């Protein structure tokens, strides 16, 4: 299992990287962490003519937190984000990152790379989708910011166009009295989830649920975001209709069976995880208030 031949490019500035990518067009592939790309190359399931290794491009490894959210650069490794005090402002990031593969993979893999890889079983796309974040795509001649809802277009497919480099992703902050949680079941610890649910719950002053959303992994072509506010509230978090929310989630998802789990089991499991994630998210929201 050795990768097929390709032309290797190691640009040292963003401009140079974008130039190379522009010239390579559809034959070019960006290499950052490589933890998803290189297995595909080793198995010869992908054979790009040009690999553009952006690891030497300065300024892409930033993790910046502001009032409105956290921006993560293309070379910020999972582990760096997991440990970063800036990213701690958004607990969901850490909740999700500890579920991404294993620590050694997280040392090298990047958050933005996970997004661009757009695996519907992966955690980070679900987080971006749940929070309504966006990905910033740069190309020679300009940048564009694509909202999560538009970014994930299918299994392993994103809105990234040939010649573009995903330079950063933005994870918006949640309003006050919000909490999040991420629950998943995988066959082995560190495997892609059989099913998983990221949840965000916002409470009002009287601790009633005013907003509740989940994003589900492994149950559709892209992360499936379901707004369950109506099913949950507006009721006190303690007596919220989590089961009704789970039913709503089960109705919305389109799981498929594979060698690890049937579609029916995934549907059932997603409901179970939705209840757990929503309940924990509500507790976190409550905790924040307290």
């Amino acid at each position, binding site marked *: 299992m050795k990768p097929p031949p390709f032309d290797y490019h190691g640009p040292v500035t963003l401009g140079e990287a974008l130039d190379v990518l522009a010239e390579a067009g559809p034959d070019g592939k960006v290499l950052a962490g490589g*933890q998803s790309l290189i297995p595909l190359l080793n198995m010869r399931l992908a054979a790009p003519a040009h690999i553009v290794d952006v690891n030497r491009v300065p300024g892409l490894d930033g993790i910046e937190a502001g009032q409105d959210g956290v921006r993560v650069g293309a070379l910020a490794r999972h582990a760096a984000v997991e440990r970063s005090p800036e990213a701690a402002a958004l607990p969901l990031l850490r909740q999700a990152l500890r579920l991404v593969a294993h620590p*050694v*993979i997280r040392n090298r893999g990047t958050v933005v790379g996970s997004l661009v890889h757009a695996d519907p079983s992966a955690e980070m796309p679900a987080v971006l989708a749940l929070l309504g974040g966006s990905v910033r795509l740069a190309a020679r001649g300009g940048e564009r910011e694509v909202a999560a809802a538009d970014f994930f277009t299918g299994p392993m497919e994103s809105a990234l166009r040939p010649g573009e480099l995903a330079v950063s992703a933005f994870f918006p902050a949640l309003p006050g009295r919000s909490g999040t949680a991420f629950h998943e079941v995988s066959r082995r610890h560190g495997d892609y989830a059989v099913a998983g649910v990221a949840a965000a719950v916002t409470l009002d002053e009287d601790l009633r649920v005013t907003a509740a959303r989940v994003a589900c992994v492994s149950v559709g072509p892209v992360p499936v975001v379901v707004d369950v506010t109506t099913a949950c509230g507006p009721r006190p978090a303690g007596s919220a209709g989590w089961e009704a929310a789970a039913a709503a989630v089960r109705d919305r998802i389109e799981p498929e069976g594979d060698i690890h789990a049937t579609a029916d089991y995934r549907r059932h499991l997603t409901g179970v995880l939705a209840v757990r994630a929503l309940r924990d998210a509500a507790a976190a929201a409550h905790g924040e208030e307290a």
Partner: protein
Amino acid sequence: MNETRHRVTLKVNGVVREATVPGRRLLSDCLRHDLGLTGTHVGCEHGVCGACTVLLDGEPVRSCLMFAVTADGHEITTVEGLARGDGEPSPVQRAFSECHALQCGFCTPGFLCAVTAFLRDNPAPSEEEALEAVSGNLCRCTGYQNILKAVHRAAEIQASEIQAAEIQAEEGGA
């Protein structure tokens, strides 16, 4: 159909090494076949087994999921570099042997590298932390029980050595 080759300079186990490799040369193959450091093993070449784990600037990474060219200019530590300068096995190496944490030994270099970095950052780990630290490496022989035991044993050895060194330093200072 001749491939372009790239000159790569790596500092491996403290020694500057050079190789000229195609862009697709995996770091694992570069270490093993270009530099002759065959202690790093290759068990799956898709990043799951962890046998090829080495330290890149001190952090454990899969050398089968990295191109040698990407590592140009970086420091690499392989299993051959874990022992001390005088050849004395490191606490982690000693603990693995003491606790019978290896059988066929093929996966062992990956575990040793991962655990070495882990104990550097977390010298007194809990059971759960130790488990998480080795959770990305496959072993088909040991059932892991003795590997977990070795992680804690290595922490003990490390701690007692640090203590001994401190005492020596104090005595030296006094």
